[in-house]
């Protein structure tokens, strides 16, 4: 178990966005978080990444307690994420965006960068090399010096994932990675993610609405509705489950 979420409740005022949610992710698993809009999926992400502090419950990542740890420290522990609406650093080049992912692991001090001491050069060279490798892996090398905002939507998505992988995570959280993509792009992305999981040795937790995508990729899924879990298991079984179907369609299928 790489991630163990235990009875997490997230309360905003009177509303429980997540209600005693518990699940675990196995090592090297692709785990899907699905459910209708507003079910609490992104909230769950934000609790795991440290942006929200849950009202109750605990989260263990590689057996360490991570509730209350600040977001930038969570990254150092090995959890990285992407965002639903792509949040690249628009003014910076693709290379710089990905370098940011490596920056927190680079070891040179402020003074060393000002004085351009040797360690600055060796660390930067190392990271730039690794960044180029990642860009090549994702087919982004030709855009190395382009401003991130100039890329196509699909490529921006890839940069965001590449950037997250640059932080050397053990668990990658993908928030609706296929949003806004056509079926061909979606298929390509699914293949890419599966490949990346193996090549970079990561576990993946993803939020998605596209059921084909989920079916193709996820080993297991958890279905959320109004902040509560209503199903956990294989994607193929989720579709057949009555509660899941009614959550998506509304209760009028019974009468």
């Amino acid at each position, binding site marked *: 178990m790489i991630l163990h979420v235990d009875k997490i409740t997230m309360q905003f005022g009177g509303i429980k966005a997540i209600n005693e949610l518990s699940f675990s992710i196995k090592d090297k698993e692709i785990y899907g978080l699905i459910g209708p809009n507003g079910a609490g999926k992104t909230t769950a*992400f*934000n609790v795991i990444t440290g942006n929200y502090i849950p009202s109750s419950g605990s989260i263990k990542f590689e057996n360490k307690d991570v509730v209350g740890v600040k977001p930038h420290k969570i990254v150092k522990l090995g959890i990285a994420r992407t*965002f639903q609406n792509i949040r690249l650093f628009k003014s910076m080049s693709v290379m710089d965006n990905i370098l940011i992912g490596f920056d927190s692991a680079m070891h040179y001090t402020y003074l060393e960068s000002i004085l351009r001491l040797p360690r600055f050069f060796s660390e930067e060279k190392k990271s730039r090399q690794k960044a180029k490798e990642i860009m090549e892996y994702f087919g982004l090398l030709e855009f190395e010096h382009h401003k991130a905002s100039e890329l196509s939507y699909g490529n921006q998505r890839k940069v965001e994932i590449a950037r997250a992988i640059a932080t050397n995570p053990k668990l990658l959280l993908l928030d609706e990675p296929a949003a806004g993509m056509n079926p061909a792009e979606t298929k390509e992305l699914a293949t890419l993610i599966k490949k990346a999981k193996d090549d970079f040795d990561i576990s993946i937790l993803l939020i998605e609405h596209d059921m084909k995508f989920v079916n193709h990729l996820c080993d297991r899924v958890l279905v959320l509705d109004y902040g509560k879990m209503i199903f956990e298991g294989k994607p193929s079984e989720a579709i057949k489950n009555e509660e899941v179907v009614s959550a998506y369609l509304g209760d009028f299928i019974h009468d």
Partner: protein
Amino acid sequence: MDLVTFLQQIINSFSLGSMYALIAIGYTMVYGVLRLINFAHGDIMMVGVYFAFFAMSVFALPFGFAVIVAVGGAVVVGILIDKIAYKPLRKAPRISLLITAIGMSFFLENIVNVLYGSTPIAFSVPDFFSQTYDFSGVIVTPTVIIVPIVTLILMMGILYILYRTKYGMAIRALAFDVETVKLMGIDANKIIMLVFAVGSGLAAVGGVFWGINYPTIEPLMGVLIGLKAFAAAVLGGIGSVVGALLGGLILGFTEVLFVAFMPEYGGYKDAIAFIFLILVLLFRPAGIMGINFEKARF
């Protein structure tokens, strides 16, 4: 100190605090709907006062009319500033808006400087305001009574508008979510214009009161008062009208009592607002009324 002096200071505090409150409301409302610290707000107050001066000196209008001119002038200037400088930047990054506000502030100060010079000008106030009444040692002028009462009345008027009219509801909704308000068919820009109008008008009233109490005016008079009023708004809880009143009063009290109890440090009284600001940020950033705009950004 004895009771008489103490009471005297209390009374003065109410007066000063109310003036800060009137100006603070404008800051807090504009921040609420635009998330903008309107640097030009203190200068709008100053412009209002100069409008009054203009009315009295050039047109020889009686004081009451001059006040109306002051308020009207400030309202127009406030609306124009929003229309010309802030509206084009609704979708721009926040830093652009703040810098523009700074530019506006500077513009107003220097236009008035060009028109009237930088030397302080005497602000003629009807003798009515200089009468004094002696209540066994405590000196009371009409101002000291009128200012807090008018402030309270205006405050209740604002709260009425905010909580009992549809415009007020729109203003409060705008403070939470611009997009939704637009989707409901409300012209967000008109509501924002209303906010600027109200805030500027109140600031002008505060400025006139200031002119009555400290009867010289100069182009930079809005700078320090504006800064303090903003600190008061933050102290009370930025976005809250009641907070602006509380913050203004607390600041007024603290300043007056500080000088009364420690006159040898009088020169530092202007630093009090700044200290309040730092303390609030350190210990209770949401201010007294505790409004927290830090909603989910994810």
